[in-house]
């Protein structure tokens, strides 16, 4: 049993998530009982995810009760990132400054298309869960 699956089952046992939510998460990590998976595998046997999902659900203390469900195809992210080449050099300093103000020391001019591709291809390892007033989940499927 892998760590992700164990974590989901723990959350289910603790009552933090419902059975339906657990099923969705299992599907997202490709651990469904019937063997169906949202994503396939590439030539290297590595799971190739199709979508990046962002889900926001209201928690018990939520005042607004907003729900957000966004599904973005990875191919669209890759295609969109190529537009980074159109950022004029004059704007690089401003973008770098904005990154720095948010605590990220990034030099935009030094980011290559290969770097961006590497970032996107490694997003599949990412699962973010934030439990506050609202529950936020970011994962791949």
């Amino acid at each position, binding site marked *: 049993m892998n760590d992700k699956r164990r974590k989901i089952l723990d959350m289910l046992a603790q009552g933090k998530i419902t059975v339906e939510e657990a099923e969705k998460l299992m599907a997202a990590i490709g651990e469904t009982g019937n063997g169906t998976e949202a994503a396939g595998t590439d030539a290297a046997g590595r799971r190739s995810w*199709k979508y990046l999902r962002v889900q926001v659900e209201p928690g018990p203390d939520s005042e607004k*009760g907003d*729900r957000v*469900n*966004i599904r973005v195809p990875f191919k669209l992210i890759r295609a969109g990132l190529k537009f980074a080449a159109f950022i*004029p050099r004059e704007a690089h300093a401003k973008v770098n400054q904005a990154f720095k103000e948010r605590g990220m020391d990034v030099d935009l001019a030094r980011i290559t298309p290969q770097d961006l591709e590497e970032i996107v291809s490694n997003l599949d390892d990412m699962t973010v869960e934030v439990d506050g007033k609202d529950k936020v989940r970011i994962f791949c499927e």
Partner: protein
Amino acid sequence: MLPMIVRFKVKEAGRRGFGLWFPAILIWIVLAAVMLVLLPFMLLAALATWGRGPGPRLLLIYPLLASVLWNLGGLTIDVDQKERTLLIDFI
């Protein structure tokens, strides 16, 4: 895959909602015509700014735009607030 249908739904509290299944192919046809008309101007701009401007990058706009549009299929944005509901789904 190029989305063929765009599903659009908006609903505000106390008002009648608005839902639409729009054949996106109509948008693509119009967009293709506009892009075709603009192509000579784009090429001229690229040539004029080749040495000292964004010339080479201008040539990439068409293939990049096509790549983004082609991969829109599957994009879903679903926002459900107390007063407003919005759904945009590229199918």
